[in-house]
């Protein structure tokens, strides 16, 4: 009897998700049809989708496995460059590599975009596998700084003169084919997100969580700690790489400066705001932060009320707001918007019923 109820609830959630997807597709189709009118909205949605993929992939390793990795930008760079190099139209290449020319072996290699994205993910995953062997043995804080270091090394190698004929060195790559429509972006992101959700909810995903909760207990029930960490790191990096490829398609031109530490921090902001260890949190967080940054853009422009300029409003103000928001979340709502929970009918019902109790107990803790 209980089992039946449980199943019913899952189905309700699933139905809602499917409904959301269908509604999104319809909305996106409408936006696509009026492309010129809604150009701005489309670009915000596309960026949010890409960030949702990357944030969720960071959440796999940070939220679900408990490994604090700060190498996101580096793996994104690998995916982005792989995708870009393999998809820039041959005709445009002399123009892109106008300084140093392109490696003859790569001159005519063009693959379809989905293949390029997967290859980008695989390159990132391969590097993650190599890096993981030494790095994953480290304790949490050393792991953070070591992955951050690797991301900087990757960036330095990409920008180095030795890679001129492949990555175009410090000049960066341009003429990357973008998304033909926002639906295309939606489909790519959705496939990634669904795959990640399936992995998180599989037995492998449960291994990840077991390692996060208690390594010693996990080991005692026969989970190979190192292999699990390695797997989580590789899976996360694969999707980060694909996300990087999507970002390259969104931006249409990239250079090594795109993938600085700040990019990792931006993604961390999404993960933390959404809730470490919450799938829906990362997705909602990505939209919230990306759209928020755009909507708050007016904070960066001088504001004149009744002839006098309000002194607060000048470039950089919205980023200050976001930093303060991050600090507030870290200090007072340590678990983020959703705090390890998922957004679903069940949570809503529970929440509305238990809201008062929760408030009392949380107030007590402070």
């Amino acid at each position, binding site marked *: 009897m209980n089992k039946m109820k449980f199943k019913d609830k899952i189905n309700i959630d699933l139905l809602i998700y499917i409904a959301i997807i269908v509604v999104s597709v319809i909305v996106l189709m409408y936006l696509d049809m009026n492309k010129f009118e809604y150009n701005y909205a489309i670009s915000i949605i596309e960026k949010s989708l890409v960030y949702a993929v990357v944030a969720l992939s960071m959440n796999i390793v940070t939220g679900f496995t408990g490994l604090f990795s700060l190498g996101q930008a580096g793996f994104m760079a690998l995916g982005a460059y792989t995708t870009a190099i393999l998809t820039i139209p041959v005709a445009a290449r002399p123009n892109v590599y106008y300084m140093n020319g392109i490696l003859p072996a790569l001159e005519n290699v063009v693959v379809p975009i989905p293949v390029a994205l997967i290859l980008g993910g695989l390159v990132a995953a391969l590097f993650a596998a190599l890096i993981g062997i*030494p790095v994953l043995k*480290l304790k949490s804080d050393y792991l953070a*700084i070591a992955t951050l*270091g690797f991301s*900087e*090394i990757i960036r330095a190698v990409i920008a180095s003169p030795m890679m001129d004929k492949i990555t175009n060195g410090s000049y960066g790559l341009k003429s990357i084919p973008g998304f033909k429509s926002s639906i295309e972006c939606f489909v790519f992101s959705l496939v990634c997100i669904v795959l990640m959700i399936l992995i998180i909810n599989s037995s492998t995903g449960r291994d990840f969580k077991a390692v996060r909760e208690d390594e010693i207990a996990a080991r005692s029930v026969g989970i190979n700690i190192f292999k699990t960490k390695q797997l989580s790191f590789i899976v996360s990096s694969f999707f980060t790489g694909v996300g990087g490829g999507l970002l390259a398609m969104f931006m249409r031109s990239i250079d090594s400066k795109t993938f600085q530490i700040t990019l990792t921090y931006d993604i961390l902001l999404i993960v933390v705001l959404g809730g470490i260890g919450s799938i829906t949190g990362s997705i909602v967080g990505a939209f919230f932060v990306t759209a928020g940054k755009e909507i708050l853009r007016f904070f960066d422009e001088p504001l004149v009320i009744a002839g006098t300029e309000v002194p607060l409003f000048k470039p950089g103000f919205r*980023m200050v707001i976001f930093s303060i928001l991050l600090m507030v979340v870290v*200090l007072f709502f340590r678990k983020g918007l959703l705090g390890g929970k998922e957004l679903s009918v069940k949570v809503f019902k529970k929440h509305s019923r238990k809201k008062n109790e929760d408030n009392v107990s949380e107030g007590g803790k402070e």
Partner: protein
Amino acid sequence: MNINQFLQHALTGISVGGCYALIAIGYTLVYGILRLINFAHGDIFMIAGYFMIFSFAVMPFPIAILVTLVATTVLGILIEKFAYSPLRQAPRMSVMISAIGVSYLLQNLATYLFTALPKAYPAIPGLKQVIKIGDISTSLVTILTPVITILLVVLLLWLVNKTKIGMAMRAVSRDYEAASLMGIKLNKTISFTFAIGSLLAAIGSILYFTDRMTVFPFSGSLPGLKCFVAAVFGGIGSIPGALLGGFFIGICETIIKAVGLSTFSDAFTFIVLIVMLLIKPTGLFGEKNIDKV
């Protein structure tokens, strides 16, 4: 590279290394006590640069230096009070994210208040004076930096090993709870540690930026990370280790730049980190840390 060029580069390296050492000590002290990578430390160093620019504009330089040192120290203490002390009982990842948050906030705040464009750093009278030793010409600050660094380290070692507050610091870093049971005021000791770290970062900042001549909102982030690497290299928690690590990273970096591989100079630091963590995770002078279950 002839001998003169080599000496010239070595001198520059030692000077940069001195600044790195001063910042690295801040990391080492804080990590020793809180087991926290203070990601904001590099940004405190950057903000100290701005403090100097603005105080120098309105007051004579000895007072401006004093103001910079005091303001930076206060900033360090405030950051600890607001961003780290509420998270004493929280998991380590939360504290680390808080540290990243502070770093993010300081960078964005600096961009907002002072714009992202580099600002000229004031020339402190006398410090940029050119000095000639044989065929090598250099400025006073280049020679002064390592001297000041070593003097400060000697002073700090005395403070940590011979004074009461130093003993408290060592006790807290050894065992948090036992120390507080022995009547050591935890918060006071931690504040004091942050104060020292920030003060040294401010001194390092004056020496570093006098040589570089410009400050911008991100000028602290990479030096900050490098100095953390220096601290890990020397053995986290060890002051002589941080000194040695700072000099090592500074000299290697200068030599790599001199050879013409400047794109790799930043990457090199992180290679050092990873190699060190693989071979000897406790660093050169670090104590072996036994993980308690």
